[in-house]
């Protein structure tokens, strides 16, 4: 009991502490690749610190939902993070749910975020909510199919079990089904975290906004919780991808040395995956909104191929 509590607390601290760093790292890499100096790697921490102490401007038209949204979004993201194995193959709250629970928890957060966008009464909020819900709905089948491919391989939807099976077969990620599922999930994660070519996290241009349009009216601490939740979500989705497909260094036993090793490897793999994301972001232009479904359909096709190839190989 105390051990489970300790594990949970440790992972909460890890999620909250590292997620701004990953975002800062991605932003820094992106700036360097575009030959800009860019803000320092610690800028997200400074942003959080500033936002948490600032005052708020609340739209007149909004209701209690507007206030509840950041809290729901934050707690669902962190709880989803607790279902993912990060420091050892056993996730702290693996009994509370597996990969399906994770997807649906993120869905709960998104449901509230979209309602928060509509609650402002402005056009942008509705625009963002409409686009976010549409695109995430279209991403869902590709995501589920890729997840099913992995879950069928491990014969379980528990992420701990999936990670344990992956650790047992280190080189399995070279199997055709795993490569296809990886690419499909990578595309879905790009869409879910609102990155180029699906959404541009750095824009406030009305024609292209999705995520930013929904949170346009948020300010001060509420904005901080939404931003932090988004970073935690990005971190947990990246960790999910990493520890399912690249299980190197992930320890199955729970010990001090094991946790330190796992953490070291996790950071290394996060850095590699961040480089991939930055490369994709820099070398692509943002897609037109109505071309995004084609991208998601290709992710779905890849997942379907992944599933069929588990059948063959």
């Amino acid at each position, binding site marked *: 009991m105390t051990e489970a509590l300790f594990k949970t607390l440790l992972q909460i601290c890890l999620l*909250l502490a590292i997620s701004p760093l990953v975002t800062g790292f991605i932003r820094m890499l992106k700036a360097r690749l575009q030959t800009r100096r860019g803000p320092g790697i610690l800028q997200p921490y400074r942003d959080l610190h500033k936002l*948490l102490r*600032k005052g708020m*401007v609340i*739209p*007149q*038209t909004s*209701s209690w*939902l507007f206030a509840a949204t*950041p*809290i*729901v979004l*934050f*707690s*669902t993201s*962190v*709880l989803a993070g607790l279902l993912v194995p990060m420091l050892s193959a056993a996730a702290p*709250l*693996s*009994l*509370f*749910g*597996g990969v*399906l*629970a994770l997807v*649906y928890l993120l*869905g*709960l957060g998104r*449901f509230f975020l*979209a*309602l928060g966008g*509509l*609650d402002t*009464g*402005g*056009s942008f909020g*509705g625009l963002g*909510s409409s686009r976010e*819900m*549409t695109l995430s*709905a279209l991403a*869902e*089948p*590709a995501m*589920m*199919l890729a997840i*099913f491919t992995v879950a*069928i391989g491990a*014969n*379980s*939807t*528990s992420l701990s079990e999936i990670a344990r099976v992956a650790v047992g077969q280190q080189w399995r990620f070279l199997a055709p089904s795993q490569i296809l599922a990886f690419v499909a999930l990578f595309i879905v994660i790009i869409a879910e975290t609102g990155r180029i070519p699906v959404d541009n996290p750095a824009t406030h241009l009305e024609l292209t906004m999705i995520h930013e349009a929904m949170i346009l*009216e948020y300010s*001060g*601490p509420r904005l901080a*919780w939404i931003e932090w939740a988004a970073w935690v979500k990005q971190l947990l989705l990246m960790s999910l991808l990493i520890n399912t497909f690249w299980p190197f260094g992930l320890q199955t036993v729970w010990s001090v040395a094991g946790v330190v090793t796992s953490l070291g490897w996790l950071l290394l793999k996060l850095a590699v995956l961040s480089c991939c994301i930055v490369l994709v972001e820099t070398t692509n232009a943002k897609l037109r*909104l109505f071309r995004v479904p084609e991208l998601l359909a290709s992710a*779905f096709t890849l997942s379907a191929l992944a*599933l*069929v190839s588990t059948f063959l190989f």
Partner: protein
Amino acid sequence: MGRLLAEAFFNGGLAACLAGALAGLAFASRPALARVLSFGLALLGAALEVAASVFALTLEASPSWSLPCGVPLFSWTIRLDPLSALFSLVLGLLAGVVSLYSWGYLHNAAGGRGVGLIGFFYNILLLSLALVFTASNAFFFLLVWELMALSAYCLVCFHHEKDETRRAGALFLIMSHAGTGLLLVAFLVLAISGSSLDFQNFHHLFSKLPPQLRTAVFLLFFLGFGVKAGVTPLHVWLPAAHPVAPSNISALMSGIVIKAGIYGLARVFFDFMDVPPLWAGMLVLAAGILSGLVGVLYALMEHDLKRLLAYHSIENIGIILTGFGAALMFRSLGQPRVAALALIAGLYHTVNHALFKCLLFLGAGSVLKATHTRNMELMGGLIRRLPATAFFFLVGAIAISGLPPLNGFVSEWLTYQALLAGFGTTQSLTRLMFPAAGALLALTAALAATCFVKAFGIVFLALPRSQRVEEAREVSSSMLAGMGILAAACVGLGLGATLFLPVFDPITHQAMGVRLSSALVASGGVAVFAGTPRGGAVSTPGMAAMLVLLSGIPAFFWLIWGRHARRTTGPAWDCGLPGLGPENQYTATAFSKPLRLIFAAFYRPRREVQAEFEVSPYYPTAIRFESEIESSFEKRLYEPVKTAVLALASRMRTVQAGSIHAYLAYIFIVLVLLLLFGARG
């Protein structure tokens, strides 16, 4: 003892409903008294039904008795076996809640006109439903089935002064009778080969039929009950008929009347049939997935709040049938444990859908009573005017979207687990169907969430879009109590899933000889397992507790920093053009526009924009926008059938010449034919 109590309570419930019906008729001229008496008696009847079902569920042997009004050939046998008891339990709960709600809803409704009549038909509907779920004799079943359809028709047509209502009622009646016709044939075949009308003799009777007949009877049952359940493409009556009824009736129709179809299918699939052929399960699974997608896609384009909810009923029937279809397939593949899991998923979703759809329809009824409109484009900002209704509607919206930790999530999770477990049950290519079905189910669920963001956001949030919405006031306490009970039930079945799962044990035991709840519920009753040792677990109470605890982190930071910070309210960003009004808000049409474009091949949308301008087209003075989607099923499937039937009917008119000589000639010809062919046999 328990058996006698179940019988007494059940018969008492029937008597209460009958008394309620008579009270409604007797006091038709005194609406206030009729309302209190007939809905009060209905509430009593519902409570007695609940008690009877609970007793029956705890009994080892299913209680069975006959009503004293039958004739020897057609005995009116009632049997409360576990499956019947489950549906009766849900019926009792919903009937009680809707009766409570109707007290307030019908208060001052249309000056009290016809309240007694509603009370009469309402009680008859409850009575017939209670008997449909428990009748254990084919003749008796068809009789109460027909009574249910007719009383539902009378309630649907209550506002018969409107053309829309009369059309919807006629469509409902025609399709319902077509379905009953198919059922009649199917039951006759079973009765002949079982040489009895008793359902107990129908148990596993399918195996005794010749193969072609077995296929035919299966299809007849599937289509006949499918019409009532609203399975695509037999669903077209549902979005027409449910919205035009008074809202308390719509709630009952979508909540439980369509479940009569599901009950019938469950009875046939898991009682009358033994091991079905594989294609039967595949057909049901495919129909389930198709219904789910078609239902949610049409719901997304709907701006009439009640029609939107009606389309979601089709979607959820699809999810239920996905579970049933998978269960049938696993039985064919010789996997009773996985089949039991899939059956539990389907039945759990049946119960859940009854609860949250009833809740949402009652919420829509409250909105309708407060604003006198069903058009979402005229609503907005109701969360400030109807705060309690808004909260209950939100609970229902989260539940129907399948989001944790409420009940919809639990049943969808079980469905996914069953589908995933199905992959290992066979080596043939058939197994690819299960993950594919899972992926499409995920799409359906995600689109449902999108639709309910739209429904809740446009109706309850932001600024009011019309005058009458600004003047809306919160509804009466009996209506709120009705919604509150259902919202609590949605939360309860979500958080208390492990306590509820053992209810399905006797049903799966009767159908497949498997009791699964001990495998599903483990670790001190806080988590649900997927039935296999390592398959995965989920704990809704754990999630809920963690969500509450984690929201302590923002609260903590607020205490140390946020408390002292300045909070101001201001207008939302209006792009520098002052005066953001309701017309600047996203509408329901705008919200669903991306999906209308993405699925244009399915919707075949038509839009028309007319702009009037004086100087240049870029500065219009008035714009008229019209957009509609094609109702493909009506146009491409039903229109040809209708044309053909009408053409045939007009041909046949020539036979009906009205001349007595011609009729005498017909009689003569028939007589000769009978003598020629009949005499030989």
